[in-house]
């Protein structure tokens, strides 16, 4: 038997099983009625059985046969379709896949005939099964009674299988890593594809609905990509193209884009109108070609979504919860490589939402929510990115629990954990080795979860973030670029060289004029902070980080700052100059250069020179702005308690001593005119951003060690320095004497020197500094104040 024949059969069978699985789960959730799927399922099993017999796959045929018998009994009405039927049929799919996987490896179908499963099928099918099984043996003549034509377009959940009598062969289609493009105009609007033709070309996915127009590339089968099949594409307006061909096309287009950029660059130096016109034409053609090839690689995200209902169902069943999965934006398209890359992260996140997010029915009812939880997965395009959100209406992330867990796992120290903001606490979930489940459940909670999700998504230039509202649920948001190879980038100059910054990381560009520099850029002891609209952003001098000298100024003395985001954090890069944006073709660097953690690739620019593409997250990590790297290393070594460098805001205390507040606790720094301070009861407050901002004077709140303060109280005409921070769900302003600096150090707090409002002492910048415990300080001060404000 030619292995090619087997691999083609396996590929097609795998597609059939994917469609069946979706249908069965849809029956389970009530989206489809059993009669809608009985005929299709029957024929699917029948086709599998027939071809298995032809290829000598005895076990595969046996299991399919038993499944067919059960469906036959249901069709004849002697057996009702119940939940156990769905369960057992899903098990049949699993068994068939297992046998097929075996067959893909060995070209034999193994020695497991799944007798227990077959027996279960027979017992469900009995008593009618005994009688029904016989005629089902030679159904080639007994053409399946055509099922009532299914309501055509709308959400056509059960794609009809080809309306032809089952035959003991199969259509030579679907080599596994293959894309099928319908020839109908592409953006999804349900252009009515010629149904008959489409059915012939790709039977299991022949629905005209856009979300299903691409045959899912079967994931299980590992057979080599056979050559393109002329006959399968005939007439349908659809052609199966092996993925390597598309990859090659894409890389050629990449080269063409580079050559085009160079041509434009050279043309600019000549005064030749005809050359100019030709260049312009080539420019347009290249852009058109690039778009067309990129589109050919795009697949609807439905190919990944389609397996989620089963994932949600199985997880919900395993943990005894009632969960409904809603999918939105199935037709959103994404480059095939990226689609593959987000498959596992997405599966994991859905599992997580069901397992950890959604509460048990009793708890939900007690909280006044419907017993059935909802997990919504929606995909949509946003600029050059695709965003996939996994939202649940569960209990949200239990911040206290996450903190306690992180401490018990040694990921953070006790004091550090208590000072973490809610957002930072949620970030802990992405640390390696973190697992929230009370008991490690079978489903998720194996501690290999979210950090792997994040790593995988970031590897393809995406990001993952999580937002949670206590009691209301959480949203996990994955952002991935539309395509990998050609990305829009900002070209910046630093140290005399040009670098490309992926647009995906770009937040905004800030020009700091010389006269505003002292206000906007705080630079002490080499740690720079940018004050931008009241928020504080860590600032890196790119030239210093790369060792090519510090940033140059523009002719007028202004500084250029590129504000970037990575891993849910924002920071600024100080560069010499911001050039323009450009479409770049990213090429991989060698392993050693990639390992520097500063560059994600390189690109060739119009002038033929190479420019490095900055790995924004990597550089931030190198510089200690994103502590994850340190934490990852630490956690894997199980060594330290995440002694990552943390930035602190250094303040001058009343008695000239130094105080520090973890920068992570600081939301903003404001200067407030003293006349704006109003008195509410015994407490001070200002009107701020449309609400009341209670003020706490740190100097008064701290029990002074000295009897008499050495420094006088702030002079009344001076503006108040206010550190705004979040406390108990609202913003509170800490009035401080003066802000000295921001220091980023590996700080060890000595708790034996604690006093009310102070967590302990530490040596920061070589000087003894009291580290404030702002939470405790506010608790002591705000308890009474809050009452007053409420009154």
């Amino acid at each position: 038997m030619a292995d090619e024949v087997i691999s083609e059969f396996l590929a097609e069978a795998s597609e059939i099983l994917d469609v069946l699985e979706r249908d069965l789960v849809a029956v389970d959730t009530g989206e489809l009625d059993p009669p809608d799927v009985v005929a299709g399922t029957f024929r699917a099993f029948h086709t599998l059985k027939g071809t298995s017999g032809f290829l000598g796959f005895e076990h595969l045929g046996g299991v399919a046969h038993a499944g067919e018998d059960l469906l036959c009994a249901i069709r004849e009405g002697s057996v009702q379709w119940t939940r156990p039927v769905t369960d057992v049929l899903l098990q049949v799919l699993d068994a068939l896949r297992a046998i097929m996987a075996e067959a893909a490896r060995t070209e034999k179908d193994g020695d497991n005939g799944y007798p227990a499963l077959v027996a279960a099928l027979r017992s469900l099918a009995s008593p009618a099964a005994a009688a029904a099984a016989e005629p089902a043996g030679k159904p080639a003549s007994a053409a399946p009674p055509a099922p009532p034509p299914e309501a055509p377009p709308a959400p056509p959940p059960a794609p009809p299988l080809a309306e032809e009598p089952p035959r003991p062969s199969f259509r030579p289609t679907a080599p596994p890593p293959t894309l099928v493009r319908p020839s109908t105009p592409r953006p999804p609007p349900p252009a009515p594809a010629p149904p008959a033709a489409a059915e012939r070309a790709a039977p299991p996915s022949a629905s005209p609905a856009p979300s299903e127009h691409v045959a899912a590339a079967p994931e299980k089968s590992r057979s080599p990509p056979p050559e393109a099949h002329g006959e399968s594409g005939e007439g349908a307006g659809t052609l199966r193209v092996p993925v390597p061909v598309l990859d090659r096309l894409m890389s050629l287009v990449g080269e063409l884009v580079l050559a085009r950029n160079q041509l434009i660059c050279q043309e600019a130096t000549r005064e030749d109108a005809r050359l100019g016109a030709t260049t312009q034409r080539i420019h347009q053609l290249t852009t058109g070609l690039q778009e067309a090839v990129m589109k050919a690689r795009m697949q609807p995200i439905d190919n990944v979504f389609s397996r989620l209902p089963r994932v949600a169902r199985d997880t919900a069943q395993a943990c005894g919860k009632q969960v409904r999965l809603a999918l939105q934006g199935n037709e959103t398209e994404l480059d095939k490589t990226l689609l593959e890359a987000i498959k596992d992260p997405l599966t994991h996140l859905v599992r997580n939402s069901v397992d950890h997010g959604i509460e048990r029915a009793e708890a939900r009812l007690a909280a006044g929510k419907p017993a059935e939880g909802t997990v919504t997965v929606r995909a949509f395009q946003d600029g050059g990115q695709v965003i996939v959100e996994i939202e649940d209406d569960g209990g949200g992330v239990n911040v206290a629990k996450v903190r306690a867990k992180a401490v018990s796992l040694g990921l953070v120290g006790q004091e550090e954990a208590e000072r973490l903001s809610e957002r930072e606490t949620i970030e802990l979930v992405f640390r390696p080795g973190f697992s929230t489940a009370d008991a490690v459940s079978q489903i998720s909670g194996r501690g290999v979860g979210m950090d792997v999700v994040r790593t995988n998504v970031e590897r393809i230039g995406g990001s993952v973030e999580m937002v949670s509202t206590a009691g209301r649920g959480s949203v996990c948001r994955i952002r991935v670029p539309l395509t990998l190879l050609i990305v829009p980038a900002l070209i910046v100059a630093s140290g005399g060289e040009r670098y490309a910054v992926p647009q995906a990381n770009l937040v905004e560009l800030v020009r700091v004029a010389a006269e505003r520099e002292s206000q906007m850029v705080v630079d002490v002891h080499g740690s720079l902070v940018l004050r931008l609209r009241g928020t504080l952003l860590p600032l890196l001098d790119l030239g210093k980080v790369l060792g090519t000298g510090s940033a140059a100024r523009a002719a007028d003395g202004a500084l250029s700052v590129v504000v970037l985001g990575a891993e849910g954090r924002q920071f600024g890069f100080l560069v010499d100059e911001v050039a323009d944006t450009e479409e770049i073709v990213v090429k991989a660097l060698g392993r050693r250069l990639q390992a520097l953690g500063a560059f994600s690739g390189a690109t060739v620019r119009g002038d033929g020179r190479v420019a490095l593409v900055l790995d924004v997250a990597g550089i931030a990590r190198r510089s200690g702005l994103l502590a994850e790297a340190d934490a990852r290393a630490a956690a894997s070594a199980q060594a330290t308690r995440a002694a990552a460098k943390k930035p602190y805001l250094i303040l001058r205390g009343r008695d000239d001593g130094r105080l520090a507040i973890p920068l992570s606790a600081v939301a903003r720094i404001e200067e407030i005119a003293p006349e704006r301070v109003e008195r509410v009861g015994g407490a001070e407050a200002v009107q701020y951003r449309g609400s009341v901002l209670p003020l706490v004077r740190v100097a008064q709140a701290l029990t002074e060690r000295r009897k008499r303060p050495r420094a006088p109280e702030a002079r009344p005409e001076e503006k108040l320095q206010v550190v705004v921070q979040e406390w108990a769900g609202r913003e509170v302003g800490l009035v401080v004497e003066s802000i000295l600096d921001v220091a980023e150090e590996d700080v060890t707090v000595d708790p034996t020197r604690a006093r009310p409002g102070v967590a302990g002492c530490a040596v920061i910048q070589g000087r003894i500094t009291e580290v404030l415990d702002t939470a405790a300080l506010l608790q002591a001060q705000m308890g009474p104040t809050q009452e007053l404000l409420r009154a």
Partner: protein
Amino acid sequence: MPDSLRICTFLLGDRTFALPVAEVREVVKDLETTPVPLAPGSVLGLVHLRGQIATVVDLRRRLDLPPRDPQEPHVNVVVQGADGLVCLPVDDVGDVIDVPSSAVERPPDTLRPAVRELVRSICKLHDELVLLLDTARAVDPSP
């Protein structure tokens, strides 16, 4: 000819080295190099080679030779490394020579260990000795 080896010789200073011809992709003239900050010292930078990007590795540094006079003209030997294309700037490219296996010997133990690491064998030609480099090791841009 199974019992001979075809090598391509090149000059670094006054020494002659060689690489197996089969591993040399091409020889190109000087290219504009983009430095890679933070990279190991033997990485001179990146160059653009007809749509591909090659890493420029300083063989002199790898072989403990004095640095090249930047004014002197040079050419680049391009080889396929395990990790992508690698450009090796050399002073000049010599000949392609078939060396009979009888003239190929193990490198002498007297070679300095750092250099010996990169040398696959020594070829005795009628007028000189040529050090045949191990391509994979020579292009590895470790410090």
